[in-house]
């Protein structure tokens, strides 16, 4: 089984640092969501991983092996990167035939993946006449052509209808359940919330959170205090993300529950409530990727306040 390892990965374009000292690991048997705002460096990271772009520093490998050194890349890693990487005048079937020819895959597999992706009925139509959803399905069919144990998918849900989203979710969960590695970037947070076991979140090219989604979602603390302003300032200075919540409460992320209590106590601020609070992925994402924060600021740390830290990497 392959794991996916990103080690100190940095990519510079002239003076712009697109990926900045990024390190994380993705394990097989899980669906891992790769999240970040537009321009965070997700696609660049994936391209470096797939040897389509070079790293300025660091490594991105499948196990110990770079993509270009894999014995049989098409049968090892299935990829969806560009939603429109098709010649519009070529049929979907011929697109897959070309890939099968190049990879030495049995042509019978083409029919299987066309059926699997639900586009067998349109296989002989020009891709230029496909809807975005059909092109996305064709891209996923191409990724599955070599029946690879690893899937690296960049926004695979784009353009899919609800049935397509459900199909994709079931497919990816089944691949992970069978021991495969599924690494999927998406900006559809609700979808990731349904799909992913783990998440890796980057912003401005830097890692801001990684770990089990269930643990990360619990990484908030509800605080009720008669002095919200000074407490907010103290906690923000300590690197936490603090938001006002209904009922005069504050929701604090990025600091363990005990540290919040200790800091309030040290400042002489009374607390009427201090309790763990689960947040939605959207709330977490906005906290982690707050544009006003410097990249990688400790505020983005996804520490679970009341759970062991083993599944979460605090930053």
């Amino acid at each position: 089984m392959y794991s996916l390892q990103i080690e100190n990965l940095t990519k510079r374009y002239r003076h712009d640092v697109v990926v900045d000292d990024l390190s994380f690991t993705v394990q097989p048997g899980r669906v891992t969501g790769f999240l970040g705002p537009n321009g965070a460096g997700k696609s660049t990271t994936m391209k470096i991983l797939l040897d389509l772009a070079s790293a300025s520093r660091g490594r991105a490998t499948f196990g110990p092996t770079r993509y270009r050194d894999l014995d049989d890349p098409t049968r090892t890693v299935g990829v969806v990167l560009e939603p429109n990487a098709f010649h519009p005048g070529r049929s979907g079937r011929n697109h897959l035939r070309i890939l099968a020819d190049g990879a030495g895959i049995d042509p019978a597999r083409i029919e299987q993946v066309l059926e699997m992706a639900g586009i067998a009925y349109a296989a002989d139509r020009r891709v230029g006449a496909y809807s975005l959803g059909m092109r996305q399905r064709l891209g996923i069919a191409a990724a599955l052509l070599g029946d690879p144990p690893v899937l690296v998918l960049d926004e695979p849900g784009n353009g899919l209808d609800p049935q397509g989203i459900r199909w994709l979710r079931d497919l990816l969960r089944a691949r992970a359940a069978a021991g495969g590695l599924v690494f999927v970037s998406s900006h559809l947070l609700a979808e990731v919330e349904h799909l992913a076991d783990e998440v890796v979140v980057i912003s401005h090219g830097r890692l801001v959170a990684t770990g089990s989604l269930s643990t990360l979602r619990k990484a908030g603390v509800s605080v009720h205090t008669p002095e919200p302003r000074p407490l907010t300032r103290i906690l923000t200075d300590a690197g936490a993300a603090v938001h006002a919540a209904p009922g005069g409460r504050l929701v604090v992320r990025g600091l363990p529950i005990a540290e919040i209590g200790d800091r309030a106590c040290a400042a002489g601020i009374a607390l009427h409530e201090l309790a763990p609070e689960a947040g939605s992925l959207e709330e977490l994402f906005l906290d982690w990727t707050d544009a006003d924060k410097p990249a990688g600021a400790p505020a983005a740390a996804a520490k679970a306040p009341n759970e062991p830290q083993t599944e979460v990497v605090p930053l």
Partner: protein
Amino acid sequence: MTWPRLVRGELRKLTTTKLPWGFLAVLILFAGIDAAVVVWGTDMDGSKTFISTAEDQQSLMAFAFNAMLGTGLFGAIAVAREYGHNTVVPMFLTSPKRSRAVLAQLTAVLLGGAVLGLVGQALIISGVALALPSTAYGFLVSAGNVTQLLAASTLAGATGAVLGAGLGAAIRNLGGAATAVVLALFMLPPLAVQLFNDAASWIPPTLGGVISGVSTEVTLWAAIAALLAYGLVPAAIGLLAVQRRDVV
């Protein structure tokens, strides 16, 4: 046996779009024009002496330079559109060792260019042969010279396609690559001749004439070597450019 598989995939790429059919249509048009010239064309004095000897007929039918120019555009379009349509992404994912992928692509384009050159020359010979009975002259070119014409256009077609493919890989933009082919084969050689008189013997139209047996400016082998250089230099530039660049 990765490389033959890649070549097969690249050949399928060429044959699963309308690109070769478009070029075939142009070749048929060329053959029709040559046939029409034979039927209706005359010299200044109203005679048809331009087809009166075997040499004249061979010269009329010599297609090598046109084959090179046409397949140069074919190669440029075939490769540059890969970047335009992003199909270069699955290509490099299938073969992350890019030199293999590009060499397979160059091989497929070379074969396509050779076939287009051969078919184009065969159509022109056929068109002229069919048109000659409407004149007072018969088909005078020997079988050996017909064979030379076919071989010359095949070689020129292959070379032109590799030249175009190399420029397509280096430039990536379809319009830019096609313009570069026209500049390299059609615009710059006359300018080079203006600057250096001796260059006239080494420009593609002259070399095409030499390998077709209708010119003796340089030796046949020197002409073949020079034509190959016209193809190989841009191909090497394209290959190097692809190795170094990110696919973005």
